[in-house]
């Protein structure tokens, strides 16, 4: 394999300067970078920039109803951070199913978003939380909705001179209801067959705001806008939950692979959202 230069800057400005005008690739936890490297005969880039020493990319904070997670937030942080456990326990539930404990110690939030593809587990809960991605370049900073940031199979709206600095989401409030399910062949170190995330803001039994998303059944994880609209503004019963679940399945375009057939995935895209919506809202499902 062709070698590369390596730099490990300690600030965002130094990182952006190092990346300017050169063929570069960022590395953080390395849990995607290193396995990929084995198949890259020409090397990943001329220069590899290590982000692990940039302290400005670390940390989780919350202010004025917005939770901000640094790009280097690890999956283990989701399991242990008090702000996450209080504001968005769905992220902890996701992390529990994410690979294994040793990978979780290194795998980062931004790495999963930028590199993960259709089965990137961190994305569905973040979509359901209506997360935004913060980007920085030497030209300035911008914020992009996560669902607009994901543009296709392993493709994002990031520009070659940009770096993800943080991911934010509006706090769904203490009384929000949520559900997450990762359907996979094993409990650990498994690639997701279907991932479903549901976040519901409920007031006086009415669903005020809904966030529903699917992973592993489209080129990139997606939000199910139709299903969200069906629930919003209503007191949800089994019939409405079923309608929303059907709307979820309608947007899924799964493929056949070694883990599951497209047909099975499509069916699960209806079963799982219905189950999660019903469980979150305490609706009894007599057929299960």
């Amino acid at each position: 394999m062709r070698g590369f230069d390596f730099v490990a800057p300690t600030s965002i400005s130094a990182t952006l300067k190092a990346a300017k005008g050169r063929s570069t690739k960022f590395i953080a936890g390395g849990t995607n970078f290193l396995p990929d490297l084995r198949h890259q005969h020409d090397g990943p880039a001329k220069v590899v920039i290590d982000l692990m020493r940039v302290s400005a990319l670390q940390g989780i904070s919350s202010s004025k109803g917005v939770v901000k997670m640094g790009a280097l937030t690890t999956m283990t942080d989701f399991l242990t951070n008090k702000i996450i456990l209080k504001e968005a326990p769905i992220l902890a539930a996701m992390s529990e199913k994410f690979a294994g404990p040793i990978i979780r110690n290194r795998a980062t939030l931004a790495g999963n978003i930028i590199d993960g593809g259709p089965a990137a587990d961190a994305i569905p809960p973040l979509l359901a939380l209506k997360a935004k991605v913060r980007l920085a370049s030497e030209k300035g900073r911008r914020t992009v909705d996560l669902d607009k940031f994901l543009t296709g199979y392993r493709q994002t709206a990031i520009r070659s001179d940009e770096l993800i600095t943080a991911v934010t989401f509006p706090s769904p409030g203490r009384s929000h209801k949520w559900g997450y399910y990762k359907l996979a062949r094993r409990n650990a170190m498994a690639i997701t067959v279907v991932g479903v995330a549901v976040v519901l803001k409920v007031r006086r039994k009415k669903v005020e705001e809904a966030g529903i998303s699917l992973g592993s059944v489209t080129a990139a994880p997606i939000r199910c806008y139709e299903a969200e609209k069906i629930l919003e503004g209503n007191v949800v019963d089994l019939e409405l939950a079923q309608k929303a679940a059907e709307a979820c399945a309608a947007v899924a375009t799964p493929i056949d692979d070694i883990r599951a057939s497209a047909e099975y995935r499509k069916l699960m895209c209806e079963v799982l959202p219905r189950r999660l919506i019903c469980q979150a809202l305490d609706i009894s499902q007599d057929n299960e």
Partner: protein
Amino acid sequence: MKMATANKSKRTRKSSAPAYVPPKKLPISFTVNGQEVNAEAPAHTTLLYLLRDLGFTEVKNGCEAGDCGACTILLDGLAMNACCALGVQAEGREITTVKGIGTVDNLHPIQVKFIEHGAIQCGFCTPGMIVAAKELLDLTPNPSRHEIKAGIAGNLCRCTGYVKIIDAIEAAAEELSSKKGKRK
């Protein structure tokens, strides 16, 4: 660009190919099991290869893709796959391998219990498994069986069927928590 000349006839390709330039070596300093190490390696060397080339062959090479956990080490106290980091990323860090947890003359209770319970068969997963168990017991001194299973979920064993490993970790947890007052 040099690429253009490579497209000529097959005969000239060999002579016009750029001469092989060995990748530049970078200095790397870190500690392994408390011992200072000063090494040199190209940037693309994985931490796993770097450690093994330095003689720390207790870090096993299994899958090189983060799937099997044979190369599990502690980096500043956190368990990780050595195959999933570049060696240069270890600059200034503290690494603990299984030999830093206990030695042949002075075994750690986790190691003692692995032997007593027959949790070692071929032994290939054992160094990684013990490091993962160490992190688990550091964070969760009295784990349930389910927590033990979750704690070693990133480490594959193809011999034992895991039951003996889980038994060993459970016994080690008991021993460590009963000794706790005396040890520190």
